[in-house]
């Protein structure tokens, strides 16, 4: 009798057994996820336009992209956005997680409260921040005016100076809870005996952080950095609600650019090509980043 399954008494093809149980998810996944994905990648090599014929054009889309100023600008702002949001959410998330790991009173209440931004529907996150940044009724303008820091209201989301900082502050706000939650879970796995031993040896808080916390948190850090990079680079909803890519395309992240190409202008093939480039960029980042991480770990 099989030791693990204990289901059948006669020897059968285990792959087949397993496949049978997986069938209910495999069929919809093939149909709704895998097939569209492969087809989507293929469309990126065609000249398909909404309602038109589809012709394979090889690398033509990518040749056009090389000279497409709007594409490069959107990649530029995409990298800026991804780098800053990811870095700050990791830093601030780690800080918050460490504060919540001090065994203070009220910690469980704090933990629930910190999760609130994450609990909100993305569309509501966008609407809330749009209201805060609103020129006439927004909290930010009202408060800054009352404190005498500005003389007249600023339209944050349509200002060339402020639009990018504004979306970044809203973006980090929504991402801190996720990062902090993962880090908190990681911190809890570090045995307190390690810290106690270090304290006996007279280690300072900084040294405990530097030589116990940080090294042990590295694998989780790598996972959070990888996931955040993907999520932030593929971000859409929040910025769409806040600025729709404006002013003048300044905050047009890559996903917004692809969305517009497909659904505003009908260049579906070109939109899919942008999607393909994004996949390549994310894969390259993950490859090099995880290789460095792995080497470091093997080196230690």
């Amino acid at each position, binding site marked *: 009798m099989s030791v693990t399954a204990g289901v059948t008494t006669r020897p059968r093809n285990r792959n087949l057994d397993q496949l049978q149980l*997986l069938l209910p998810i495999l069929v919809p996944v093939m149909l709704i996820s895998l097939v569209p994905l492969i087809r989507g990648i293929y469309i990126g090599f065609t000249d398909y336009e909404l309602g038109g014929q589809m012709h394979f054009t090889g690398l033509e889309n990518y040749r056009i992209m090389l000279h497409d100023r709007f594409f490069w600008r959107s990649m530029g702002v995409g990298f800026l956005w991804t780098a800053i949001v990811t870095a700050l959410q990791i830093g601030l998330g780690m800080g918050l997680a460490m504060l919540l790991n001090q065994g203070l009173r009220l910690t469980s209440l704090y*933990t629930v409260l910190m999760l609130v*931004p994450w609990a909100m529907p993305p569309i509501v996150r966008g*609407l809330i921040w749009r209201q805060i940044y609103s020129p006439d009724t927004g909290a930010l303008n009202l408060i800054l005016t009352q404190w005498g820091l500005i003389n007249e209201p600023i339209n944050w989301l349509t200002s060339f100076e402020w639009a990018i900082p504004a979306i970044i502050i809203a973006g980090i706000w929504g991402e801190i809870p996720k990062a902090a939650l993962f880090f908190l879970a990681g911190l809890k796995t570090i045995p307190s005996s390690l810290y106690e031993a270090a304290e006996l040896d007279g280690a300072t808080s900084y040294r405990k952080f530097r030589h116990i916390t940080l090294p042990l948190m590295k694998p989780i850090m790598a996972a959070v950095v990888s996931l955040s990079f993907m999520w932030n680079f593929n971000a*859409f909803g929040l910025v769409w609600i806040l600025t729709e890519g404006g002013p003048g395309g300044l905050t047009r992240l890559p996903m917004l650019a692809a969305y517009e190409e497909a659904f505003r202008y009908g260049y579906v093939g070109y939109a899919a090509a942008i999607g393909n480039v994004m996949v390549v960029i994310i894969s390259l980042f993950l490859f090099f980043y995880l290789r460095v991480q792995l080497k470091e770990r093997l080196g230690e």
Partner: protein
Amino acid sequence: MFSMQLFKRGMIKAVLHMLILTYLMYLLFPLLWMISTSFKPTPEIYSGIPTLIPEVFTLDHYVSVLKEERLLKSILNSLYVGVITSVIVVLISLPAAYALSRYKTSINKAVMGWILTTQIFPAILIMIPLYMILRSLQLTDTLAGLVLVYVVWDIPFVLWMLQGYVKEIPVELEEAAAIDGATQSQIIYKIIMPLLLPAIGASVMFAFITAWNEFFFALVLLKSPDLSTLPVELARFTGIEGQARTGPLAAASFMATIPSIILFAVLRKWFASGTLQGAVKG
């Protein structure tokens, strides 16, 4: 000496609490501002004076939201999609989770690889072909089509979570049942499922909230106003008359957030328990 040390420790604690409260101010202020706006009469919203506690308290905005037929309809649509999605996801993920944790074959790696891969691809790549496939099945502009998409969207997380829990259940239980002549599906739904109830509860809620919150697919796949879900209707709500509806919009946004807040309050224990620790340990 001793009291000095105690004083110092107290100070450190106070500073730590202060730091956490600073974080919470940033994280909670937007929600508080929205709630406050939703209870302020319109003139007060435009008065130009920032107050967190309304001087005059009104339920007008909630009343006007509840009079909006389309908004009410969209809430019902969202509830319907969320409930059906979460039930289906759990029912079909359970046997799969069982298969992944009890059989160690080459399929495991493929499935886990797929779960990770799904995170890399931007939704735009899937969206267009998905639209074409659903159209050929005559499922565009139907809630059933949207449910199908959400089910597949939720499978990776639910599967990953459930299979972690199945691993914790001792195999001896199933062997005993098999000896008594139980079939495999009986084992899964009669023995495994009851033991997994907490994890299933969490999965159902997770799937519900994902569906409840989702915007992009609903925006593209649904065309009839009658079918739109709450997030799409909220986006429209602002679009038409814009600024003038700040109050009702705040009220509707707060209402849209309530299910998730309930979920997080319920899941508090789950977050605090060892579940996630186990997950990150791998």
